């Protein structure tokens, strides 16, 4: 172990900021993070062992106890569930002879679920030792069973098992046009920086992550900060259930994304950039490294880019399974080798980001759009879209439709048109912007995609009339409770209380007072949480309660109060210990 760790530490230059990278490598080698490794790393990195444990326990993909040699994580997004995930999960457990949530006795295989893996257009999906498998079905599970029994190394598994498709159905403004490598950097260098800034500003480009801050403004604020170092960070931690557009952009348009980052670096004076790639997209890692290497060879990264006396390079850092790291300040904490806990603001990342230095954090799509705008100009871009939302939006469409995949539309496009294009029929409603966004009913299909109506980071999940509103809401609420970082009270305790309270109602133990209590809890979590996760975690309940009060009502008991636990069931242990089971040893719940 010592030799392995020594080599790893040398490779990562003994930098504590690379702790996540180091722990990922340890996990890959030993199937967990052994206590002895924690001690060696703590000493070598000169950090406390608690700091390492805090990181190891924060991220879903890191473990302190051994996982299976084949560690399988079934994606548990609502779209996976709609594609028969539950049955397949149980089938896999039987076929692989492992209990769900456990490691097989011989240590060969472990089986767990994980939050959305970004393959909603080709679910049900799973990760095997971190690598994605799409379109799971029984034959594939059978095949995997054989490979596991033969103990075949993952590298020798049939490549077809790991095929992931782009499913690009509709290319618009951005995806239709391609850029020559270096075109945006050349265009930026050919002009005065102020001119490039004003062109970007005139384009009206707003961040594509969901919040929609003006990109030019963010870059300008960062550029104006006096500092010895500036950083550019591309947020490729798309964890919002139902979003997978960044997966496609990184798979097929990575050059343009890196180009956008390089232009940003040129404008703000950064020498170092990071692509923070979500762990679920590990399968893209080597491909992206190759793109970076090619760009270095072509003089588009590294020292003296295009002989313009401009130095910049990009490093890829992988996450380790934490939705919250999509929040920009949590992402920065994660980049620094810490648990992904959102920072207090102000200060904002543009003035105090990575290592407290001015940092631009933007979404993958934002950098892609910026690169094209720099080449083609503001007018080319904002000829599409609405007044407050210029340009186009790339959508990940999934759920009940014939053609789930990637679609690009001008802002202002009505939901109805998207539903027509993707082949959705008998629509019940659409979740726009993922669980943190809005659920709209089939009476609102005339509403438009735009910051002024329905803002979205790109998640668009369609539900038809066969679906159960409460089950959808339940899946989303469980997701938020699982992904809360736990930093602040209203989110840490509140999301778990929301889960308990909603479960109570959905399972048929709720009364009228429970819905009132649920609503008041929603308001509390929304208004008092530290960051966007908590502030939006109650949205699935609020938007469905508003639209389908009758569905909630139908679930309620007609009594004024129903306890949240099984009174008689709680006495079972006492009955067993006292060895009696007569009538007097039982309690009735509540007089009905």
């Amino acid at each position, binding site marked *: 172990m010592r030799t392995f760790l020594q080599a790893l530490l040398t490779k990562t230059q003994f930098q504590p900021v690379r702790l996540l990278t180091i722990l990922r490598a340890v996990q890959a080698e030993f199937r967990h993070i052994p206590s002895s490794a924690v001690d060696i790393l703590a000493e070598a990195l000169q950090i406390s062992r*608690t700091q390492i444990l*805090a990181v190891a326990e924060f991220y879903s993909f890191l473990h302190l106890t051994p996982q299976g040699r084949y560690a399988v994580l079934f994606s548990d997004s609502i779209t996976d569930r709609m594609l028969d995930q539950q049955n397949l999960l149980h089938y896999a457990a039987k076929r692989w002879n492992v209990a769900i949530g456990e490691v097989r006795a011989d240590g060969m295989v472990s089986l767990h679920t994980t939050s959305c893996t970004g393959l909603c257009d080709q679910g049900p999906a799973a990760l095997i030792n971190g690598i994605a498998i799409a379109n799971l079905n029984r034959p594939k599970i059978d095949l995997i069973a054989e490979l596991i029994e033969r103990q075949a190394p993952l590298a020798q598994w049939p490549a077809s098992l790991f095929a992931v498709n782009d499913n690009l159905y509709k290319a618009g403004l951005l995806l239709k046009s391609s850029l020559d490598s270096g075109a945006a950097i050349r265009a930026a260098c050919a002009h005065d920086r102020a001119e490039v800034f004003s062109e970007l500003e005139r384009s009206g480009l707003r961040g594509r992550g969901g919040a929609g801050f003006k990109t030019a403004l963010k870059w300008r604020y960062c550029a104006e900060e006096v500092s010895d170092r500036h950083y550019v960070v591309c947020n490729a931690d798309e964890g919002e259930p139902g979003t997978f557009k960044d997966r496609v952009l990184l798979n097929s348009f990575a050059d343009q994304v890196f180009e956008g980052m390089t232009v940003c670096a040129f404008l703000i004076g950064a020498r170092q950039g990071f692509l923070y790639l979500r762990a679920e997209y590990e399968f893209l890692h080597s491909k992206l490294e190759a793109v970076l290497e090619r760009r270095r060879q072509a003089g588009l990264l590294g020292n003296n880019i295009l002989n313009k006396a401009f130095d910049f390079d990009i490093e890829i850092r992988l996450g380790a399974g934490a939705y919250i790291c999509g929040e920009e300040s949590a992402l920065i904490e994660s980049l620094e080798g810490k648990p992904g806990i959102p920072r207090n603001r102000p200060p904002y990342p543009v003035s105090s980001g990575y290592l407290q230095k001015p940092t631009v954090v933007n979404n993958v799509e934002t950098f892609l759009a910026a690169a094209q705008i720099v080449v083609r100009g503001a007018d080319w871009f904002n000829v599409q879209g609405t007044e407050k939302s210029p340009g186009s939006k790339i959508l990940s469409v999934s759920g009940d439709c014939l053609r789930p995949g990637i679609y690009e539309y001008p802002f202002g496009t009505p939901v109805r048109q998207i539903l027509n294009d993707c082949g959705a029929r008998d629509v019940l409603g659409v979740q726009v912007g993922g669980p943190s966004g809005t659920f709209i009913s089939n009476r609102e299909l005339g509403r438009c995609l735009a910051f002024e109506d329905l803002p979205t980071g790109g998640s668009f999940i369609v539900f038809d009339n066969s679906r159960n509103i409460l089950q959808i809401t339940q899946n989303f609420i469980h997701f938020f409770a699982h992904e*809360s*970082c*736990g930093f*602040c009270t*209203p989110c840490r*305790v509140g999301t778990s*209380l929301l889960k308990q309270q909603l479960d109570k109602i959905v399972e048929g133990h709720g009364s009228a007072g429970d819905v009132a209590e649920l609503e008041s809890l929603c308001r509390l979590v929304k208004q008092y949480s530290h960051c966007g996760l908590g502030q939006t975690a109650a949205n699935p309940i609020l938007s469905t309660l508003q639209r389908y009060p009758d569905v909630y009502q139908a679930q309620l008991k007609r009594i004024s109060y129903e306890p949240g636990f099984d009174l008689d069931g709680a006495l079972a242990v006492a009955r067993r210990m006292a060895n009696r089971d007569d009538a007097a040893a039982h309690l009735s719940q509540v007089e009905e």
Partner: protein
Amino acid sequence: MSGTINIDGKTVPYRDGQTIMDAAIAAGIYIPHLCHKPGFTPHGSCKLCTVKVNGRNCSACTFPAADGQVVINTSDELLQDRRRITQMLFVEGNHFCPSCEKSGNCQLQGVAYHLNMLDNHFPHFYADRRVDASHPDIMIDHNRCIFCNLCVRASREKDRKNVFDIAGRGINKRLIVNSVSGTLKDSAISVDDCAAHICPTGAILIKRSAYRLPIGQRTYDQRQISDVALSGEVEHGQD
């Protein structure tokens, strides 16, 4: 640079770099808090000090004061919501005030008194947490930890020992101790450390000091937590 802010109709001066909490305390205005203590890096996690700043909810302990801010600290809504947040802390762990040896000296209890909290409101989690009584002088009852991070900060910033950290995610968060065995006895903590005395609840206790002062005669049995906080915080939770 300095200026004034307005808290509940009262004009309050501030100096540049002060938070709303700093300015309020200096002006003799109490804003309920648990994870905050003057002299320590603000944390902003308990959210009890949430105030409305120009109509927006902000944590008073981390939000910088700026000229002309209109701050609402006392309103029926804030009072009710702070009571709910406190109740959340009570149901998350296992708090047995009547039998806790910190009773009367506990800030969590003191805040609950102040907010007129009469029940726990929410269903209990009945968390399964252990007690670390390994150290000869100090014990940790994890059942009462509210993740305020004060012991973490005190150990790092005052004691220069780095004994504590918070690990885990969401509702599974836990306080961890920096020692190979993970227990307090093997850590660098000593009974004179600031970290051993800073806990606002009964999670970190000093052994053989319980009930020296009878319940009923303790800090918050006698005075409101708001008075204690404004008189310099030094008397908070005396052992």
